[in-house]
């Protein structure tokens, strides 16, 4: 597999060094492989910049902080937001969602309100809301599934004038289905519900332009879009971020304290970023965003989709397989009669890395015969040859078990 930059053809292995290890990596939805330049960039931070940002009065520190703040702007531009003050750096997407739940909704939701989520959510966009509604004794409404996807008609009925927030995945990590965000947002706007888009999966597969779709909050992790671990993003409308009460207090977000007890906070977004920040990760994510412009771009989706169609066709030819996905980067399925974990060992023995189980999305499996799936998630480096190997392995599994 090759990629082209400035007219030169390069091997994919040079872009993604893990590919040299001899695995077939089909688990990009869990975490994407990291490009060499992103890895190098994180090292460069430590070698050339080194300091912790946001605090010191010295020049090197100030300049480094400026560089990091430029990346905040880069992140905001990447999602079509024109105010970098609306970008909060967090630990991961889970942290971003919990921050909305605990710093905002918890303190602002009226007692007779309700919260709407869906049965398609990842635990990270599900459990925080269940806990919140239990703690406060308010109602949480779970939009059911229809053909393994969000039942939008049900959603339209469940979101009502009392709905404080609707929190919904932009793209399912189980089925890969991309949600009809426009429709959901328009329902929410009509009823006055705030709207959070969990873009953990979506961010890597669809251009997000906040000028066009206009949610109140949008969250994702760097590590699922060719960035480093240890960095999440929370986009929030500035008038809403102003209403946030921090949960974590300490360095970086406090400016100074007078008379031992009068606390003066920094401005947003620093006010929501407590303790020493992971500047090396932010720096590396800047390199990711550069790369996304140049090499890994939305055009690649076509390639992934065509490979996905090939995979689905092949699975259908094998037969006796239940497929939960439409063509796209994520294909989940079960080999009828074979437990996903048993299948897993066979993939292991062929050095195929994919995921089996409930995928941190167990509500999906409520009332289903099975409690898990086999998930293949494709990226730009995967090939037909690899898909053929997976199919062969599935045939072996069927032969063995059935």
């Amino acid at each position, binding site marked *: 597999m090759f990629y082209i930059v400035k007219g030169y053809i390069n091997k994919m292995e040079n872009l993604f060094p893990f590919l040299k290890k001899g695995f077939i990596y089909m688990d990009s939805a869990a975490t994407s492989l990291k490009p060499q330049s992103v890895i190098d960039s994180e090292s460069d931070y430590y070698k050339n910049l080194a300091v912790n940002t946001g605090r010191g009065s010295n020049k090197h520190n100030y300049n480094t902080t400026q560089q990091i703040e430029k990346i905040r702007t880069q992140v905001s531009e990447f999602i079509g937001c024109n105010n970098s003050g609306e970008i909060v750096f967090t630990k991961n997407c889970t942290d971003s969602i919990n921050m909305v739940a605990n710093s905002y909704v918890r303190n602002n939701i009226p007692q007779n309100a309700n919260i709407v989520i869906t049965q398609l959510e990842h635990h990270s966009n599900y459990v925080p809301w269940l806990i919140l509604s239990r703690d406060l004794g308010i109602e949480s409404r779970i939009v059911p599934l229809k053909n393994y996807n969000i039942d939008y008609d049900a959603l339209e009925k469940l979101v009502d004038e009392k709905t404080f927030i609707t929190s919904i995945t932009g793209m399912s990590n189980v089925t890969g289905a991309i949600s009809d965000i426009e429709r959901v947002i328009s329902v929410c706007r009509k009823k006055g519900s705030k709207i959070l888009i969990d873009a953990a999966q979506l961010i890597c597969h669809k251009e997000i332009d906040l000028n066009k779709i206009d949610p109140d909050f949008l969250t994702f992790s760097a590590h699922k879009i060719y960035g480093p671990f240890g960095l999440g993003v929370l986009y929030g409308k500035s008038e809403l971020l102003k209403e946030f009460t921090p949960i974590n207090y300490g360095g970086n977000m406090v400016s100074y304290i007078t008379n031992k007890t009068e606390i003066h906070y920094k401005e947003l977004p620093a006010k929501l970023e407590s303790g020493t920040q992971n500047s090396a990760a932010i720096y590396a994510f800047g390199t990711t965003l550069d790369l996304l412009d140049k090499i890994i771009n939305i055009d690649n989706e076509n390639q992934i989709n065509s490979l996905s169609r090939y995979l689905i066709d092949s699975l259908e030819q094998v037969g006796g397989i239940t497929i939960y996905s439409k063509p796209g980067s994520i294909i989940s399925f079960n080999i009828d009669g074979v437990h996903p974990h048993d299948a897993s060992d066979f993939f292991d023995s062929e050095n195929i890395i994919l995921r089996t189980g409930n995928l941190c999305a167990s509500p999906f*499996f409520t009332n289903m015969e099975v409690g898990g799936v086999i998930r293949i998630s494709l990226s730009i480096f995967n090939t037909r040859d690899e898909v053929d190997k997976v199919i062969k392995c599935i045939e072996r599994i069927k032969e063995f078990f059935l």
Partner: protein
Amino acid sequence: MSLYKETLMKHFRNPEYKRDIPDSDFRKDGVNPSCGDSITLYAKCDCNKVKDLTYTGNGCAISMASADILCSVIKDAEAPMELIDDFINFINGEDITFNDKFTVLEVFKEMQQYPARKSCALLPWKTIKALLTEN
């Protein structure tokens, strides 16, 4: 796949003990936290010995076969708790040789190379241990 030995697959495909005991003395549910697979054990006990043991549940070949084999051996055990502990240690990598009556358990020797699946093999054994400890 060296893990899926013939004996093991036999117990999975043609289980002997996969049924409930309506008038059991004890019942116990077990769940595998790593995947959510669940099992229910039904036991008839007498003087610290397990007279009869069966199971129902839904799980992978390893856990289902392990349950079936557990049911088949536990009835003969003079000291069921010891046997259970031996098996748990065996799966966790200890070098244990089982006596003649229990050599079937050696079919799980390969498990030591598949640490990710240990919890599947152990599920029924941990559940029976909990059942016996509680009662």
